């Protein structure tokens, strides 16, 4: 395990002092690159193992703190010092029965209030043939303001073809005083679904955590397994993986502009953005047999080689089309007016609440795993990591606009440099026979995606997915409170969030 440095913590009481380097000072502009990435629990023979993962500076290994606690016991909460920790603690409290003492928000998160775990439930173990009993129960809401505030609840079934989630606005006239989001209607327990599966079949599952991030999830999972088994993937497979990952970013970002145009009532721009995304999906289908590029990336490389003859020409044409489309958008005053100063996010809040991907880059935080912790040979390509400091919807769109062209640049280099050779290396080290653990990360369309895998005998025993939307959804309400209803839909679209990824 070279991708992280481990620190064992003896006593829960030492937790706060040992992790003090991650504390976010709300008064200071963020200068540090170090940040909490995820907290997860795992059942072991010695009790429940709590893991705190943080990213370090460019090129440095990640850092992991480990702490063993008895099932059902209490641990000091970090949420008052590192706000992002609060979400992970609530998840662990729901699923592993650990109490986080002093946590400001101890409501249910992943399991809804109506979920009735069996008696004596002290954490997930093994598989369940039937879901827990479920009795519809109102969500526990915070008390907001006085009598002159109105409450508007919508969801989980919302207008248009969108993912399920529930949103409660406390508002006065046009002004929103508070937005309370309730997600996890779609929680399927994807992490536990890996348990007991073979390493090879885990890829298919990872691809189905968040459909529009299939490659990112499949790749992060494969990289984690390769890290655990110390597999070296052939160059051609690495290059083709980059090709797949950037094609996925392209159709996601183009779709994003289609949606943003729709919400700013530009009918032609709406049609054109969605049409360009459709063209990329069709290219995906011709290249891989599937519009979501599934079923290719596996631990060890790719399941089969790809014929890329056509790709270069199609991409050149698409780049030209994307260029004129995005230039026309950037010159449309009515569109810019709706985005500028909408949903402002400061660098401090972005860091404290864990914003990642285009969201943090639009708020002045400069990080991108492809550049800072290269994987799959990204260090072989030249590309710009765009940055902005405004933190509004316009900045978030601008980052994605530049990333589209960065993707085209990477794709061009991949195709020019593509080597011949095998695309798969089998694991003959027999390392998988022993207990293994490993970590893989990917800069997905929506930000930092991390997979941590544990297993033995070639089978997986625990998989943790650190999903970018999990923290971006946490950030989002901070840009809504104090704004107005008219901007809400545009602001939400400018975040480009995935509910499936968040809920898992």
């Amino acid at each position, binding site marked *: 395990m070279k991708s992280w440095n481990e620190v064992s913590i003896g006593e829960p009481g030492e937790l706060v002092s040992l992790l003090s380097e991650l504390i976010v000072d709300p008064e200071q502009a963020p200068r540090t690159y170090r940040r909490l990435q995820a907290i997860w629990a795992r059942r072991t023979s010695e009790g429940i193992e709590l893991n705190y993962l943080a990213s370090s500076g460019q090129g440095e290994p990640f850092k992991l703190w480990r702490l063993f606690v008895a099932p059902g016991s209490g641990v000091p909460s970090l949420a008052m010092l590192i706000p992002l920790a609060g979400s992970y603690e609530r998840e662990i409290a729901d699923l592993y029965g650990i109490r986080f003492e002093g946590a400001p928000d101890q409501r249910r998160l992943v399991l809804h209030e109506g979920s009735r775990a069996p008696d004596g439930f002290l954490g997930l173990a093994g598989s369940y043939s039937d*879901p827990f009993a*479920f009795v519809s129960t109102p969500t526990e809401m915070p008390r907001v303001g006085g009598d002159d505030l109105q409450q508007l609840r919508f969801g989980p079934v919302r207008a248009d073809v969108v993912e399920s989630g529930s949103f409660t606005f406390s508002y006065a006239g046009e002004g929103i005083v508070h937005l309370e989001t309730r997600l996890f209607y*779609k929680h399927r*327990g994807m992490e536990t679904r890996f348990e007991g599966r073979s390493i090879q079949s885990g890829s298919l599952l990872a691809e189905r955590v968040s459909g529009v991030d299939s490659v990112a999830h499949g790749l992060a999972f494969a990289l984690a397994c390769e890290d655990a088994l110390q597999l070296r993937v052939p160059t051609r497979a690495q290059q083709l993986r980059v090709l797949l990952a950037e094609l996925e970013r392209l159709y996601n970002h183009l779709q994003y502009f289609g949606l943003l145009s729709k919400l700013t009532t530009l009918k032609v721009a709406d*049609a054109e953005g969605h049409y360009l995304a459709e063209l990329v999906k069709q290219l995906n289908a011709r290249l891989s047999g599937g519009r979501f590029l599934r079923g290719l990336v596996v631990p060890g490389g790719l399941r089969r080689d790809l014929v890329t003859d056509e790709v270069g020409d199609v991409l050149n044409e698409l780049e030209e089309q994307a260029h004129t489309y995005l230039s026309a958008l950037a010159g449309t005053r009515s569109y810019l007016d709706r985005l500028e100063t909408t949903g402002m996010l400061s660098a401090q809040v972005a860091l404290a609440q864990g914003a990642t991907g285009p969201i943090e880059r639009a708020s002045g935080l400069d990080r991108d795993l492809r550049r800072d912790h290269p994987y799959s040979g990204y260090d072989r390509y030249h590309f710009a990591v765009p940055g902005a400091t405004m933190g509004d919807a316009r900045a978030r769109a601008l980052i994605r606009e530049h990333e589209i062209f960065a993707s085209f640049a990477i794709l061009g280099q991949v195709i020019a440099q593509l080597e011949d050779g095998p695309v798969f290396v089998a694991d003959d080290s027999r390392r998988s026979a022993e207990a293994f653990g490993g970590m893989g990360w990917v800069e997905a369309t929506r930000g930092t995606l991390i997979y941590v895998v544990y297993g033995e005998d070639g089978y997986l025993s625990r998989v943790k997915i650190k999903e970018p939307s999990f923290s971006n959804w946490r950030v989002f309400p901070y840009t809504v409170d104090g704004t107005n209803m008219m901007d809400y839909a545009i602001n939400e679209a400018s975040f480009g969030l995935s509910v499936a990824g968040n809920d898992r």
Partner: protein
Amino acid sequence: MSVWTYRGLRGGVRTIGWPLEEVSGMMGLPVPTAHRCPEGCERCAQSCPTEAITIDDGGVELDHGACIDCKLCVEVCPFGILSPTTSLTRASSDRDALRRRSDVEPAPPTLQPTKHQRWLRKSLFVRHIDCGSCNGCESEITALDNPYYNLHRFGVFFTPSPRFADVLLVTGPITSPMHDPLVATYEAMPGPKYVIATGVCAISGGTNGGGYNAHRGLGGVVPVDLWLPGCPPHPAVIADALLALVGRT
């Protein structure tokens, strides 16, 4: 603003003809050929991540209602008994018709023609509900509105309210918190109403159904009129299923 009017006109018509003759590069779900398997070989069934394959005296049976199109079975079969198809796999009103034993194309989806179908022929309103999908199905349903497929031309529209909806497109394996909202949405629709189980999760749970917080598909929750396989279904097949519902295929 005029720049967009000009762009729209200059772009011309981007919509494809209908019915679709061929969608380039797409493969359908694998089907078993009628050849007999050697005794004792169960490689395909063992490779299947969703237990979609059963083997008995009659040969191989592949349930398209559970197939996620991973093609592992095609890869492991040394006898070429399972092969990918080039035609897209269509919806069926009969759940059992998705359990395929041969490469003989099943009859196209038909419902009992009723006078209601005639009412809905040129104006069909669709409500979608996400019951725990991976967002793949939503991405493809959204694609129906892009200029390439342009579902509007058939008089098919998405509606925000179930009160106006004729059809309910259900995606996902039905997670516990979405069970009651699904039933409430169905009950809010006026009759006649139709339900399409969209994608393998909604049919059988696929890879994502089961566990501590999800059911295994739509069966028994609300009545289903069409079972639409695929992981996710291709936009063309979703359009095909919607048109089949009103007897327009």
